[in-house]
Structures are given as structure tokens and as C-alpha cells.
């Protein structure tokens, strides 16, 4: 062979035996221990910070999404009594009596509204039913008299016809355990029905499934728009001489230096019905009727694409920067037309950047809150807006936590799919 002189010029040492290798590894570990513990000590403050401010709240949130002690704590005797109930017929007189007593005592302690609210989200109408019954039952001596005569059931059915149905009882029983999946079921438009089985919510109460799908669709659309707009820009940045690309890069980064709120509000100024764009279009005679471009999905998509564009451009840029222009030249010299060379040589090499940019943009946009809240109107709302609604307005924290948990699970799923397809080590973010 002609090349032997080069290929065999290195001397091959015999491989070490197992004992020697073990000893060597142990020595290596000892030598590196100090360095490693030093490195660890340096990150301890950060680790504590992340643990306290990030990991613990997430755990707390996930806990809250399944922990629901309200009914079990407020109506302990009723819950215990209902344990034996078979959901087939109305409960016995004794159970009515226990519930009546507990309702009265809750009413006296002004604790009824919380539990009534919780039950109401399980079976609508429960709030009014419970408060009405409690009010009537707490009239002077009513309850003792009824218990003595054994006519609590009749009296309650007299107060409200709904007590002759098993539905309110099923609602109490469904919420009787401290740990429940009911929030997650609600977040997916499902519920426990009267028989304690999982079934779909009635049609008119289904909102979250469509909302989740819509959130995904909007996020995918925004990611695609960012890619279409960002790819040529990143390519330009990567191929221009440094002096000019620096200026462009500053313009890409400029949005980062402006408050998110300011940027979103300026979109309102631009896009509103009496806004700049409509004025110009009317003035040019391109449209006769003013377009509705804000407080709907269109506004959400436009504003969010603008805000998330740098997150697509930066990873793409960092990948493209490292692709030598000689690859394209080589492809051209080998006879490939510009388009063919782009698709077969350039594009595949930018895949890690596309992957990183897309996953970053997508994950950021499914959790986006401020922009849809400000410019989304009714149709442009996303899942995060409903989480905020349940946190702040309806005070149904369990449902908010469950929606958040679903979002978290989706992101992790996406991440693992990406890892399986591309490998997370290929992710290049800057």
C-alpha cells in the first residue's frame, strides 16, 4: 500500500488489563473530586434560588391541581355517610339529616359560600340550592324539630324540588375525596357524572379542548411565520460583512430593549380601526371599509410574531454563521442549480437552528399571556389567558393549576419528541 508509511507510523500500546484500568479510573476520580466539588459549591446559590423560586412553585402547582380538601373538610359527616351510598336511589333520611345539620352550622359560621361555589362548578345550580336550603333550615328550631320528627327529607324536597333528584348528592360524593382528578377532567372538558364515571361535559359547557387546540394552532402559525420571516434575515446576517451585519443585528435585538407592554400597545396604535394602517389604506383608496385588525386573532398573531421573531433569528443565525460559504460554492461547482444546492446542501445544515428556533418560539408562544390579553379581544385569547382568569377572577385555582399542568406536560412532550427526532445536543441557541 502506498499510504502505509503514514497510517502505521503510530505505535500501538497493548491495552491495559481490567485491574489497571480500574485503578486508573479511581485515580482520575480522586484527582477530579476537588475540582468538581469546587464547581458545585459555586453553583449552590443558584441551585437554591432555582429550587425555591422555580421548582417548588411548580410542585406546589401540580399538587394543587389534584388536591381538593374543601368538601371533605366542610362536610365531613355527610361525606362519611355518603360512602355507603350506591347512587341508585335517594339517600336515606339519616343522610339528609346529617347534611342539613352541617349546612346549618356552615351557615352560622359564614363558611357556606366557599363550599357551595366549589360544588357549583361540579353541578351548576348547587350554589343557589345549598344557600337557599341552609337559609330555610337555619330558621329558629326548624332543624331540631325536623330531625325529631324524622321528616328532614320531605322538608328539604319541599324547600327545593331538586333534592328529590340524585344529582346534587352525586356532586357531593364526586368531590368527597381529598385527592381528585376532577380539575384535570374539567380542563379537558370532562367530568364525573352522576354514576361517578368519567364522561364528556355537555356540549355547551365544552371550552377547554377547543381552546387548547386553538392555542396550539396559533402557536404553530406564529412559529411558521417567524421561520418564514426569520430565515432569510438570519441568512443575510450571517453572510453580510461584519460591519453591516452588526447594525442589522442591533435592529434585530432592539425589540428586546423595549418593554413588551410598549411594543404591544404600539401595535394597538397601528392596527386599531381608527389607526395608522387603516387610515393609510383608506387614504390610498385600497379599502372602502375600515378593517378590524386588532382585538381578534389577527392582532394576536401579528403582535406575537413580531415579539418572538428574535427568538427564531438568533439560533438560526448562530448556526448559519458556522456554515462555510464554500459548501454552497462546492455544490454550485459540482453542477447544482442555486435552488437545488439550497435545498440539498444548505437547508439540511441549518436544521439544528430551525429546530432550536422553532421549539423556542413554539414553547414561548403557547404560554404567552400579555399580548393576547391586550390585543386578542375575544377570539384571540389563548390558554394562558384562561389560566389567569381562573387565578384572578373565578378563583378556581385548582382548575388554573390543572390547565398549567397540561401546558407543562405538552411542553415536556414536545421537548422529548424533539429530542427523539433531532437530539437535544443538536440544539443551538446562540
Amino acid at each position, binding site marked *: 500500500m502506498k*499510504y502505509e508509511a503514514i497510517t502505521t507510523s503510530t505505535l500501538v500500546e497493548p491495552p491495559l488489563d481490567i485491574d489497571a484500568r480500574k485503578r486508573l479510573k479511581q485515580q482520575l476520580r480522586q484527582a477530579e473530586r476537588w475540582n468538581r466539588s469546587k464547581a458545585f459549591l459555586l453553583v449552590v446559590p443558584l441551585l437554591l434560588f432555582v429550587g425555591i423560586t422555580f421548582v417548588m412553585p411548580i410542585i406546589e402547582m401540580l399538587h394543587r391541581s389534584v388536591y381538593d380538601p374543601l368538601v371533605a373538610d366542610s362536610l365531613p359527616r355527610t361525606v362519611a355517610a355518603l360512602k355507603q351510598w350506591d347512587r341508585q336511589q335517594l339517600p336515606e333520611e339519616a343522610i339528609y339529616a346529617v347534611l342539613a345539620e352541617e349546612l346549618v352550622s356552615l351557615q352560622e359560621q359564614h363558611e357556606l359560600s366557599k363550599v357551595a361555589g366549589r360544588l357549583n362548578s361540579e353541578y351548576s345550580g348547587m350554589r343557589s340550592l345549598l344557600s337557599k336550603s341552609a337559609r330555610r333550615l337555619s330558621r329558629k328550631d326548624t332543624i331540631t324539630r325536623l330531625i325529631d320528627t324524622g321528616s328532614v327529607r320531605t322538608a328539604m324536597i319541599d324547600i327545593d324540588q331538586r333534592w328529590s333528584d340524585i344529582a346534587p348528592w352525586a356532586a357531593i360524593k364526586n368531590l368527597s375525596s381529598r385527592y381528585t382528578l376532577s380539575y384535570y377532567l374539567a380542563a379537558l372538558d370532562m367530568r364525573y357524572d352522576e354514576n361517578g364515571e368519567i364522561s364528556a361535559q355537555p356540549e355547551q359547557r365544552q371550552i377547554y379542548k377547543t381552546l387548547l387546540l386553538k392555542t396550539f394552532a396559533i402557536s404553530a402559525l406564529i412559529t411558521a411565520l417567524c421561520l418564514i420571516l426569520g430565515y432569510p434575515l438570519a441568512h443575510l446576517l450571517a453572510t453580510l460583512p461584519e460591519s453591516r451585519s452588526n447594525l442589522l443585528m442591533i435592529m434585530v435585538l432592539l425589540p428586546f430593549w423595549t418593554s413588551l407592554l410598549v411594543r404591544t400597545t404600539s401595535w394597538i396604535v397601528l392596527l386599531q380601526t381608527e389607526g395608522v394602517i387603516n387610515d393609510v389604506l383608506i387614504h390610498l383608496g385600497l379599502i372602502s371599509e375600515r378593517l378590524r385588525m386588532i382585538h381578534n386573532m389577527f392582532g394576536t398573531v401579528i403582535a406575537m410574531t413580531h415579539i418572538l421573531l428574535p427568538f427564531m433569528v438568533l439560533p438560526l443565525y448562530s448556526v448559519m454563521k458556522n456554515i462555510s460559504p*464554500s459548501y454552497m460554492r462546492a455544490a454550485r461547482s*459540482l*453542477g447544482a442549480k442555486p435552488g437545488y444546492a439550497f435545498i440539498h446542501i444548505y437547508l*439540511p445544515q441549518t436544521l439544528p437552528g430551525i429546530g432550536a428556533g422553532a421549539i423556542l418560539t413554539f414553547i414561548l408562544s403557547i404560554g404567552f399571556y400579555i399580548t393576547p390579553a391586550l390585543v386578542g379581544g375575544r377570539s384571540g385569547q389563548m390558554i394562558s389567558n384562561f389560566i389567569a382568569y381562573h387565578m384572578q377572577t373565578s378563583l378556581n385555582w385548582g382548575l388554573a393549576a390543572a390547565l398549567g399542568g397540561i401546558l407543562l406536560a405538552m411542553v415536556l412532550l414536545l421537548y422529548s419528541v424533539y429530542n427523539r427526532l433531532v437530539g437535544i445536543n443538536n440544539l443551538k441557541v446562540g
Partner: protein
Amino acid sequence: MSTLDNSYVRFQNVRKTYDGEILVVKDFNLDIAQGEFVTMLGPSGSGKTTCLMMLAGFESATQGEIYIDGTPVNNLAPHKRDIGMVFQNYALFPHLTIAENLSFPLKVRKLSKSDIEQKVKRALDMIELPQVAGRRPGQLSGGQQQRVALARALVFEPKLVLMDEPLGALDKQLREQMQYEIKHLHERLGITVLYVTHDQTEALTMSDRIAVFNQGVVQQLASPTELYEQPANSFVAQFIGENNKLSGKVEKIGNDRCVVSVEGCNVQALPVNVYQSGEATTLSIRPERIQINPENDFDNRFDARVLELIYHGDHMRTRVELMNHDQFIVKVPNGSRPLEIRKGDLVQVGWLSRDCRALDASSGQA
């Protein structure tokens, strides 16, 4: 110089500027015959790579015409020129296997699957690396990547192959070996090669003709022998091979002999581009043409002091002080009768007047 009829590649009065102010290539003319191996040699920034890129179609000529096989190509897209090209860092596509890299130009040309397979196999056999077909470029050594890049530039059988410092990234031993290999491939396949390098050894070993570039101008276009033995100016003399230069003034000038005074000594020299007495000149003498204790027929002999001896195996590099010049190098061959000299010795050195070329005075650029 050849005419348009038998030249395969022709640069005609080509100029190139990037910024409209500085010409990186000034009035470049070059004719390359079919099957010839021509090297463009020069320091970096001398315009040689720009000329190559203009021929490949990646840069456009600001002025002038470039012909391939008699057709002007100034407005022809790179992919239509059918030129094989080897790049400095190989430019093997990292996401494709070696076999896919090699089949790329064939797939683009829409060859049948069996043809492609056969040609790829033949190309891998040619570079003696049949086992790497399934690997990625990143898994190969530098030398192997180099050979694959060469094979990829040749697999679609182009008539013209351009090479842009293809051996620059290899270590010395491998580089020398690849030089011979490329030369042999060139001879076997009968292709025309235009080669760019800044390494003069590479240029001398491989080329039929060498164009020496400096500052956008071809200083000399000649065969390796002519370039080394008869450099046309002091830049070429300095750039190709090792060279002793002595600055002086022409005292007397004849047809094939002139007398140059250097620091008060009269040196017999061969006039190359000096024309009248009184002119300033640079004398150029190759270190291996100088003898210590010279033979009788040497018409230049001077006293010198040995300053330094460096052992190089096949020769002893001897630095002597001569005519107030302390960087004068003499190569003393390590023959069967080695010379007994030591540092500090006073010796006589001498050379023949025909080995001492009186060139232009502007030697500062080298």
C-alpha cells in the same frame, strides 16, 4: 505564448476590483493549453484566488474576458461551467456520507442509479479508500478528506479542475505525498488543472508552468526550472527558493557580463534587467551555487567569516559575513568529503558570474 486556437482557458486583460478603488487583479493575461498543469503562486492577497474564483464563476470580472474552450464565460452561471473544484477546507458536505458526497454531482446530472454506483465505486478505488463509502466526512482524517474532495471534483469527469490551496491544511509529510498523487492523477487523466498555492515547493514539484503573482500583477510566467534558474526580477528571485541578495551599483556593463560594486568590492554578474552603468541593482545568488574554498574557475571569490553553522542533515547551512552583509547563506552539501569549518573561521567563498544575476533594485517588496 499560445494563441486562442490551442488555448483551453484564456484570461484576456482581466481586471478586478471589489471597492472601485483598489485593483486586486491588474490586467491579467493567461493562456492554458489543454492538459496543462498551471499554478498561480503568490503571497496571500496577491489576487491569485480572485482569478480562480472568477474562472469558477463565483466572482465576476470587472473588466476583460475569460474564455473556456473558446467560449466566453463571463455571464455563465457557475453550475453550467462544468469545472471540478477542490476547496481549501475540502467543503465536503458534512451531513452526507462519502458515497453521497461523491454521487452529488452525478445525481445533479441525472445519471442512472447503476451508473452513479459504478462511478462512485471507481472514484473510491482511484483514491484507494473503498472502505469509507458509508462514513461521514467528520469521521475521516484530514488526508482522507482531501482525497475524497479530489475524487468528488473528478467523479463527473470535468475537463478542467481548479484547486484552491487544497493541501494547506495537511501536515508536511502528507502534503508532499499528495503533491505526487495529484501530479500522477493529472498525468493519467489528461485533465487541465489550474492550481493556487502560496507554497513554492508545491508549485515547483507539480506544475508545467507557474504564474508568480504579486499585488495583482503576474511577475513571471514560466516553467519551474526557468523560474528558479532565471528569475525575471528580484521579487521572483526572492519568492522562489532561497536567495542571497546584495545591493550594489553597476560599474561596467557588457552583453553577458557586468561589474557591480557592492560595498567597495567588484562582483562579476550576469545582467538581467540592468541596462546602463550607474544603475542601482540587486544581485541574486542561490545559496547552493556558492562554494567555500572555491574551485579555480570561479570568477568571483571573496573573504568571509563564518558566523553560524546549522546542521540540516543533507547539507550544512552556513551563515557568513561578506561585504558587511551578515545574512549571507551558503549551503554546503554533506558529501562524502565533509568540509572542516568552525564558527569564526576566515574562509574564501566564490561563485560563477553566470549564477549571479543582476536584477532590478526594488527588492523591498519580498
